[in-house]
């Protein structure tokens, strides 16, 4: 296996770890849990973009990773901004 293959293996494993986080995105249980899953997907997505870029020798994929990081943080800030008036999902279980 040369380095390119290693990067593709890493990309596949990163995709699979990303899939694990989707359970948290589905089940919650708290509002913040859904959002944390989105953050994890964004960080893993940056990792996949880096590995794909390295495998394809395409440095412009790094720009896509950078853009993804910026926009992911915008989504998190938009979620947390309404700290006082925003109730969590009414349907959320309260253990």
């Amino acid at each position, binding site marked *: 296996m040369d380095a390119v293959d290693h990067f*593709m293996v890493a990309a596949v494993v990163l995709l699979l770890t990303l899939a694990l986080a989707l359970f948290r995105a589905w089940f919650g249980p708290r509002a913040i849990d*859904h959002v944390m899953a989105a953050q994890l997907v964004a960080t893993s*997505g940056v990792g996949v973009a880096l590995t794909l870029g390295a495998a394809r020798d395409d440095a412009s994929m790094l720009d896509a990773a950078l853009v993804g990081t910026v926009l992911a943080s915008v989504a998190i800030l938009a979620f947390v901004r309404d700290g006082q008036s925003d109730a969590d999902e009414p349907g959320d279980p309260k253990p």
Partner: protein
Amino acid sequence: MTLAFDLILCLMIVGTAAAALLTHNALAAIVFFIVFGNLLGLAWLAMNAVNVAMAEIAIGAGITGVLLILTRQRLMALGDDLVSAETPGWLRAGAVLACTGLTALVGSAVLSVAPADDLGGPIAALLPELGIENPVTGVLLAFRAYDTLLETFVLLGALVAVWSLAPGNAWPRPPASLNLAESGGGSVAQAFGRLLLPLALVMAAYLVWAGSDFPGGAFQAGTVLAGGLIIAAIGGAVAWPRADNSILRAVLVLGPGVFLIIGLAGIALGRFLFYPPGFAKAMIVAIEYSLALSIGATLALLLAGRSVAPDHRS
């Protein structure tokens, strides 16, 4: 390994789309939609379409996701619990049948076409005339500039349409503030906003410049700018202007205006949107910088929403 990657990615794309549509929890639906957008971005990367990947990650996942999150907050403040009422079983069964049939139909239509990169060669052959190397920018700003010009007007039109929803006693006051500090706390958000806005400006300027020869361009750059503006607004570093602010309006029409004027000037030299030989790159870059600025402001204001009355509960 590339095949395994593509297969897993496609399965996950369909799975997250299904989850976004099937979950009963609105926030989970929005999160799955954002994840779906990010995975689509990775799919475009896998297809070596980095221009589209950037646009999808920035606009499809990023801006649309932020829009949905903010809309959810606005609806919940109005007492909407965002529960999607159950549809009757017969309707769901019928929809499953109809949509499976439609998928099969579209799928067979897809299979009847052999994927091919037919226009890649002819477009690459024309690029030296423009002096740029990114073929997608070439198509957007030169070969199909008409489409792009109209698209910028669509974006501006959407903002006008959103603004026109303001009640009479609200217009032309600014949109509701996004400032986190107004709902308690916020020094971290403030510091982050102050740090990010200049970084976003640099990144946007870089993306436009790189967009001539590498993936990037005005739309991706404008989106990063809008993201920086939203973070700065949440951190309290930027306050929304009134809708009748003349500087704001100048910024909003700058991009489409410069594009239109250069296009009309082309008529004098031959035809609409004709770039004089040797000046094509300079004009494309001028259009793209002004477009990026206008797109950034327009997207940020689309997310901010319309004017609100003074007694508005945010």
